[in-house]
């Protein structure tokens, strides 16, 4: 089974489930009722409902499209040949996504410069690049340069965390 071949089926299904969730849970809980509404079409949730019902119809359309496309020749569903083999590609992507959120969380305590230096070091080496004469100057100078640009030129304070 290739992802590309079944992607429309999956996407259509996800859109339909997402829209049902928005209509039944998110709108009733997340959209406040102002109490009195002059016209039904001016209600805060009216516009949202139009969008979500439209999206639901598109989800059904994509699902049907995906069901029909499933029967087409497998040759059309080949994955791009520049991708890493499965499951290495999925693991790499998941690791990078997890790293992005660790990076974001660490800024609070470590400031913006130190995690950025670590991010450049880790991410360049993770992709197999080992030219330290390039990596180290870039990792050290870029975050420091950006920090000083925003602080001194743009007058936008940047966090330094425990290093501040």
């Amino acid at each position, binding site marked *: 089974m290739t992802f590309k071949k079944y992607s429309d089926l999956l996407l259509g299904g996800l859109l339909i489930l997402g829209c049902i969730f928005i209509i039944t849970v998110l709108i009733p809980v997340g*959209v*406040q009722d102002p109490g009195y509404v002059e016209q039904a079409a001016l209600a805060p949730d009216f516009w*949202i409902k139009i969008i979500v019902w439209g999206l639901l119809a598109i989800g059904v359309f994509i699902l049907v499209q995906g069901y029909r496309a499933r029967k087409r020749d497998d040759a059309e569903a080949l994955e791009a040949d520049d991708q890493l083999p499965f499951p290495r590609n999925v693991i790499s992507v998941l690791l990078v996504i997890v790293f*992005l959120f660790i990076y974001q969380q660490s*800024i609070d305590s470590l400031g913006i410069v130190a995690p950025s230096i670590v991010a*450049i070091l880790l991410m360049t080496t993770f992709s197999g690049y080992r030219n330290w004469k390039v990596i180290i100057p870039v990792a050290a100078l870029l975050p420091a340069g950006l920090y000083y*640009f925003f602080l001194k030129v743009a007058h936008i304070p940047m966090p330094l965390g425990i290093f501040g």
Partner: protein
Amino acid sequence: MLENLSIALGIFASWENVFVLFIGVTIGTIVGAIPGMTPTTGVALTLPFTFYMQPVTGILLLLGVYKGGNYGGSIPAILISTPGTPAAACTVLDGYPLAQQGKANKALHMALYASCFADFVSNLSLIFFAAFIASFALRFGPPEFFTLIVFSLTIIAGVAGDSLSKGIGSAALGLLLATIGLDLIYGTERFVFGEVELLGGLKFIPVLIGLFAIPLVIDHYSKKYVPHVTAPVGEEGVTWAEWKRCFKSILRGSLIGVALGAIPGIGGAPASFMAYSEAKRTSKNRDNFGKGEIEGIGAAEAGNNGVCGATMIPLLALGIPGDVVTAVILGAFMIHGLQPGPLLFEQNITMIYAIFMGIMLSSLFLLIVGKFGIKYLARIADVPNSILYPVVLVLCVFGAYAIGNTLFDVLLMMVMGVVGYIMMKFAIPAAPFLIAFILGPILEDSFRQSLVLGDGNFSIFVRGPICWFFLTLAAASLFMILKRNLGSKKPAVQSTKSDE
């Protein structure tokens, strides 16, 4: 008029503006020359650096990046057969074969001259048409704006990707995301869930950077390392006779670019392919097209760069962005408290003139940067992605944090990055999402204002010829896109073979 022009000259004629414009064109050309980086990514990453600038200065920086990026895409297209931007894909057809013949310098120079000429023509069209359209648009009320935005979104959703349904779905998701925050009429909360940061709605810049830069970073780690071979630049340039021979195709390509660029959503890629096919159809050397014909490079680049100024016409005159880059520029206007559209021509005409002056100068800067930088720019294509994408990530984080000095914006950018990556994998185009996200509040506002005007009667949306005009255009374009989509699906295998 003359008084306004002299005030505008006063606003524009500062070293800071000229320098920033030059830097913008240089950055854009460098970004465009890097395979995988687009002018959109370049403009998105530059936007946070404009916060502290005067509005005209900041907008000129972004315009410089946009124009430089559109030209820069031709460099890797010619040297390594990898278009730096989608719009430069057509340049590969003749640019790379010419480079393989040891004439890369000739191809690069033709791309530069055609780009600068088309850019100049496009700028002139902007100056001539924007004010005229804006004066007409002063007659628009909420129903007219509603139908205009519906038409624009229909086209953008239809042409942005391979599938109309995914394009419309993407736009619908963008509209949905734009509803987060306080209700426009009643001030009640919508999808806020007690999070103070969401009261004002999702900020545009983290959404933009998240959608257009972070997915590239994530996607890089799912790919194999594929080394590319850069063709030597060579010495041979473009002769006067060659320029004269290609001029007709370049002029035609420029005008095609202008015409297509002025329609919201079309963009540079269709313009360059149409300009190329017209040049091929009418050229005496048509048999040489695809084998290293310099006229093909000129036509493709003219079509591609002819859209640059023209995409600003709907933005400045109507407040409707023609593509993602102009959507970012719309965001830059908004950051500085300005709303492009007909009223801007009434209230801030001197600022518009100052921007026009900068735009005209940008064509000259493009020529200078390209002419003197070709040999150095050619090396940029060699920058390894392994170092490039971590650098992009750090730029994104600094940029997102700088918007409001809050980590929430960085988190929002990361979340949108993951959303953007998922969209990329499902082949959902991100452009309709972003443009709908920006236009969403205006669309909803005009929808509800129209209903207030019409006492809740939906017939207000067909109240006059302007509404009918846009609704008919929307229906006609939807029909044509649908016809194209259905037509291209049947002979899928054959069509790939007969692309040429």
